[in-house]
Each structure stands twice: as structure tokens, then as C-alpha cells.
């Protein structure tokens, strides 16, 4: 009696549920969906995450204990990645920097996307003037160049880690909002949301239960991209001297502090630069290969 679902519909639902692991198939199958380059990205990402989480544990000597007159030393057995402009061990700095770079970027991204999604859900679910006010207001924020905004914020409130997280968060809220809103508005127009409305459900239920789960997939991909932007913004801020403040150092400031070594091809500048590049490329690879995405591209007519 029953028939198969039309392909268009399959692809439509696939795109809605994209990137979320299919609940019925195991995580292994989900992993396999990444393809080789996606897996590579995932591996690199995992490596840095582990470094950030466990790094300080693995390091026998803290960075503070070093500091020798051996400035810009090349790669050696004692210093696997050489030393920096103060003679500190680069490996230790990189591993510590991972915490700051990844930590700040992750927090800022989550803050931005979280706020953006919440506001977007509110805008989509409650409509008219709330939507208009939010959209216009956040548009206005986009008009201020991000580095300028960061500059003013840091000048005003100092450059502590929470401040950087908040600043980067604010900068990327409008982007996340716009993306989430366009998705949420589409979902909001779908019949199942209307059904929930006619049932008499409140705005909060509609936001959280009906719309949110269905925009999470695409938003996850968006979150990845935003993460990359935040990492790069942090690096730029470090260049301008506004980033993470010493003795703490994120990778951007490591590059910046040691940029004098660039002309000599010193490891102390190349390694953190490579770390930034590998992290951002890995995130991009993972996003580009999220399972379901390619299938979606192929299946869409």
C-alpha cells in the first residue's frame, strides 16, 4: 500500500536535519560520513582540543620556569620547537597558547551563536516589531568595522580574557543572528509550527521545541565558520597589541611577539602561525565534509 517518499521531500528533510547525527545509526557510521579530508580535519581538531585540555598536564616544566638567555634558539632536543624572544620554550608556549586561542574563540563563538540564535528565535517566533527592531539594531552593529569595535572596547574596558570573549561575541552576534533568523523564519512558516500555534503553545515552546532543533544542524556549520573568524580576529587584535596579555599568550600574540624571527626563518614564528592555520583549516575541512552536506548538494534538484 505505502509508497516511497518523493526525493524532493527526502532532501528537504535531510537538509533540515543536516549535520546532526542520525539517531538511529551509530556514531561510527556518522564518522564514516566525513570522508578522508573531513576525518583529517577532525583528527587535527581533536589533537588541538586535547592539547588545550591536557597540555598543562603533559608539560613537566611550566613556561615560567624557563626563560633563558638562549633567545630564538633553533629546534633542538632540549627545545623541540626552539625558543622565543625571551628564551622560553616554544612547545610549552604553543600548548599553553592552545588553551587561550581555542578557549577564547570557542567561548566567543558559543556566546555569539547562542545570543544570535536566541534573538533570532525570538524574532522569528514573535514577528513584526520585535523582529524589525532586532534586525535593524543588529544591522547597525554590522556597520561598525569589527576591528574598530574591538579596538574601542579594549581601549575602554581593558584586554582581559572575559573582555575579549565578550567583544568577539558581540562582534559576531549579528552574523549568527542573520543566519539563524533566515533559517528560523523559513521553519516558522512551516505547517508544523502553525499546528503548534493553533494548539495554543506559547512563544517559548515554539522557539525551543519546534524551531530550535531544526536549525541546529546548519547553525553548527555556521558556528564552525564563526570560530575561524574569531581565531583570526584574535590574531589581528594580538597584532595590534590588544589581544591576550602576557605572560599568557595565544598563538596570534606568539606570532606577533616573535615576528622578528621571521626573516631568519625562526621556528618561534612559524610554529604558532602553522598552529593557527592548521586549526582553521581543520575546522573548515570538518564543516565542508559534515555528513549529509554532500548528500544534500547531490540530492538537491
Amino acid at each position: 500500500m505505502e509508497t516511497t517518499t518523493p526525493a524532493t521531500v527526502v532532501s528537504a528533510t535531510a537538509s533540515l536535519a543536516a549535520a546532526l547525527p542520525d539517531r538511529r545509526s551509530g556514531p561510527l557510521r556518522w564518522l564514516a560520513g566525513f570522508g578522508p579530508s573531513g576525518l583529517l580535519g577532525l583528527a587535527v581538531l581533536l589533537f588541538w582540543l586535547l592539547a588545550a585540555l591536557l597540555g598543562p598536564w603533559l608539560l613537566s616544566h611550566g613556561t615560567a620556569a624557563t626563560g633563558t638567555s638562549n633567545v630564538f634558539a633553533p629546534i633542538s632536543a632540549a627545545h623541540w620547537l626552539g625558543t622565543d624572544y625571551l628564551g622560553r620554550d616554544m612547545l610549552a608556549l604553543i600548548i599553553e597558547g592552545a588553551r587561550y586561542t581555542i578557549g577564547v574563540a570557542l567561548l566567543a563563538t558559543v556566546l555569539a551563536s547562542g545570543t544570535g540564535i536566541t534573538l533570532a528565535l525570538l524574532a522569528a517566533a514573535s514577528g513584526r516589531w520585535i523582529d524589525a527592531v532586532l534586525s535593524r539594531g543588529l544591522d547597525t552593529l554590522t556597520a561598525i568595522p569589527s576591528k574598530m569595535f574591538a579596538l574601542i572596547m579594549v581601549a575602554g574596558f581593558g584586554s582581559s580574557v572575559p573582555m575579549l570573549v565578550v567583544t568577539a561575541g558581540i562582534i559576531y552576534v549579528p552574523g549568527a543572528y542573520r543566519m539563524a533568523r533566515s533559517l528560523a523564519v523559513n521553519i516558522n512558516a512551516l505547517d508544523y509550527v502553525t499546528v503548534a500555534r493553533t494548539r495554543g503553545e506559547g512563544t517559548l515552546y515554539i522557539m525551543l521545541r519546534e524551531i530550535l532543533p531544526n536549525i541546529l544542524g546548519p547553525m553548527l556549520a555556521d558556528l564552525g565558520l564563526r570560530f575561524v573568524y574569531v581565531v583570526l580576529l584574535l590574531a589581528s587584535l594580538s597584532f595590534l597589541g590588544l589581544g591576550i596579555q602576557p605572560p599568557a599568550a595565544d598563538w596570534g600574540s606568539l606570532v606577533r611577539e616573535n615576528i622578528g624571527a621571521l626573516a631568519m626563518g625562526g621556528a618561534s614564528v612559524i610554529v604558532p602561525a602553522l598552529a593557527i592555520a592548521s586549526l582553521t583549516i581543520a575546522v573548515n575541512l570538518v564543516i565542508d565534509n559534515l555528513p549529509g552536506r554532500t548528500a544534500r548538494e547531490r540530492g538537491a534538484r
Partner: protein
Amino acid sequence: SAHAQTPKKGGRIRVAGATAAATDTLDPAKQSNQTDYSRCNMIYNGLTSLDGSLTPQPALAESFTTKDAKTWVFTLRKGVTFHDGKALSPADVVFSVMRHRDPATASKAKVLADQIDSAKATGPNEVTFVLSAPNADLPVILGTSHFQIVKEGTTDFNAGIGTGPYKLKEFKPGVRSLMVRNDAYWKPGKPYLDEIEFVGIGDETARVNALLSGGMDLVGSVNPRSVERVKGTPGFGIFVTQSGQYSDLVMRKDVGPGANPDFVLGMKYLFDREQMKKTIALDYAVVGNDQPIDPTNRFHFAGLPQRPFDLDKAKFHLQKSGVTGKVPMVASPAALYSVEMALLLQQTAQRAGLEIDIKRMPADGYWSNHWLNSQVGFGNVNPRPSADVLLTQFFQSGAAWNESRWKSEKFDQLLLASRAETDLAKRKQMYADMQTMIHQDAGIGIPLFLASIDGHTSKLKGLAPIPLGGLMGYNFAENVWLEA
């Protein structure tokens, strides 16, 4: 050496200073950094000028005399004209000096000018200054950049009319200025160059790259870390000016841990000066001894025993002080090398059982908000023209910039006496006593006196250090020439 060669006339050079901002000024009273000083030195002259030992030499004033160090008579050089052809007159001098006292001028030299009670033209080529108290160093003070002579009644300084070696051709604040030779310059044979293009490049790496790529002939403020690169590139050299500039650890004696003398002493023992010299300044510095008069100064007291890096003593004093917990320490890129110093201090302190919490502040707003206000933090003092100016501004009990709020009546008396003392040997002894007092009691740790490093093409000749700062104490313009 450079002086052995005969200068050549002609040629054009490009010079880069370390800052560029819309606030770049040609108003002598408002000069605030290397680029301002360098630019103004091309255009203006002072009554005197300071030489390599910071001894005042006649400039626009042919001679200066005093009997009591309170009333000073300056005789002006004849035949000096401004760039627009007007002859230099005593009225110009009176105007140029006295305008600093007017708050509306917002002069940076107001404090120094305040001691001049009156300035009067007392002859066709003579100006007489009367001071509120004797000061043997007045010719030194008048030799500093801020007291350069402008035309009477000038309000708009952007035209850049002075008596200096170069005439202003173009001035774009924050971008560049262009100077051409003043053929009517009063110093015979000078200047040598036809034209100087002066720009500000804020980024050190960019500055050095600009030099090495052939885009610049002289750049200021080279980081010690770039020296090897410059030296290693054929056709380029560096020029080092050892000066009295220092970054100091300030421990306020009125509040915070610094109120305890043992804490202060302990911290002073924590400076591993040799390592700081090596890793931070890469040897482009001399070790300091917690007193502000540097070895280039004629009043430097070499007999004061050098305070060593001594962990045990440090530990002993720190423990005795009873200071526990994390001690916040404020540092900033605004105070040269202070962040690095703080980092090294943090490491040694840890070994002595003291936790230091470094608070790095942005350069913006550092001087107005953190310096002088932090309990433990860093300051930076630029070279001063005289020991008296330095001690008066930074160590006199009532001085606005008494960084550590160290108060000593004995010191204040000595200072006043030395200022009026004209016998050099006696004066020297007084300064030695004052240096010892600061070394022992003030809440100031001075690990290093820093050198200024400039980079230049090997073709540029005539550079000789003047310990006011880099770029020949900002006065390179009339002294350098290009080798063929």
C-alpha cells in the same frame, strides 16, 4: 671615525621615526616624541644646544653669563634670519620662552618655565632672564627642544618658520614632512643635504623592512632583536646611542607592599640585571644600580657598590616584610621593556617564594591611568638634559612625578644646594650623596639604562651619539651627509 671624513654636500635622504599620528606637531611647546623632536630640530634652533656630553654650547645665543645663577644674560648671534627673511630679535626670544608659562599654551615644559620669573630684552641683541631661585643649569634647560625659538606672535605653527637648517616644504601630520636646505643657515657650511623626507612608521618590523628594502636611509628605534638582521645585510649599519633612558619598577612607599622597606629591598635584589641586559636588551644597555644618573652623565657616581642579583637576600627581606599572596604588578608596552622585565621578575620571584601577578595594560592611557597610580608597577623615564632636571622632576619630595612618593628632607636640601652650586667638584659630591640615598631608600628599582638603536645605510655619514636619545639626540639633520 665619521668625523675624520670631510662632509659632502647634496643629496636627499628618507628618514623614518617611530610614530605617526595626526597629533604630529610643529609647535615646539607641544613636542612629545621622537618624530616631533626630530622635525622641530630641522626647523628651529634653541638659544643653546647640547653636545655629546650634554654640555650646553652656544647656538642662537652667542654667549651667556651669570653671576649668581639667578640672573642670566644671553647675547644673541647677529645676522640670523628666520626662513621668511625676518631677522632674529630679542622679542622673539622673550616670546618663545615666556609662552610656556601661559597655561593656554599647554606647554610640556611649563614646569621648567615656571622658574623663569621674567625675560626682558635688555639690548638690541641681549635678553636677560631672572629666575625665582638660583639654577646653574639654565643654559641646559634652554637647550632642550621645547625652548626652541619661534617668531614673536606665532599662533599657527604649521608654517614651520624657524631659523633652523632646513625649510619646511610640506607637512602632513601623520603622513610625512618634506624639508629642503636653508641656504641662509647661520652655521657655515651646514647643512649638507638638499632635502630630507621624514615619515613616521609605527610598526618596528615595517620600519626595519623599509630600511632593508632600500626605501629608507635612516630609521629610528630599532629593536635589539632586529640588529643582527640589519648588520647582516650588506650596505646597512646600526648606530647606538647609550643614554640615560630607563624603565623602572615603582613601589609606592605610601600604600601597598612598598610601604614596607624590606619588600622594596627584597625586590631590588630580585633583579637579575645581567640576564635582563642579555635577553631583554640583547646587550644594548648598561646595568643600572637603582639610581637614575647613568654613566654617560658627568655626575654619575661610579663609586656606589653595584647591587647584585641575590636570591637569598631577596628571600630574607621578602620574608621579613611579611608580604604574602599574589602581588599585582602593572606593566605596559608604553614603558619600554617593562613587560619583559616583569616576566623575568615573575620568574625569579617565584624562586624566592613570591607570586607576582602581571597586569599588562595597553599603551593607551597608561600614563594617565596606571603610572603613578599603581602600587607596584613600571614607569619609564626619558633622558633628561641634566641631572638636576631629572632629580627635581622625579625625586624631590613634592615633585608631581615622584613615582614612589619617597620623601626625604635631607635630599630636598641637597638638591637645592647643588642647583646653586657652581663649583663642579662640590656639586659632584652632592650628586653622589643623592644617588646613594636613592639607591638605598627610594621605592625605585632601575635595572638597566637603555640604549637607543637606529639603523641606516652605510652611505649615511656623520652620526655621533648625543645621549638625549636616538637619531643623534634628534639632531641628526644638520650633521649627516651622504657619501658619494
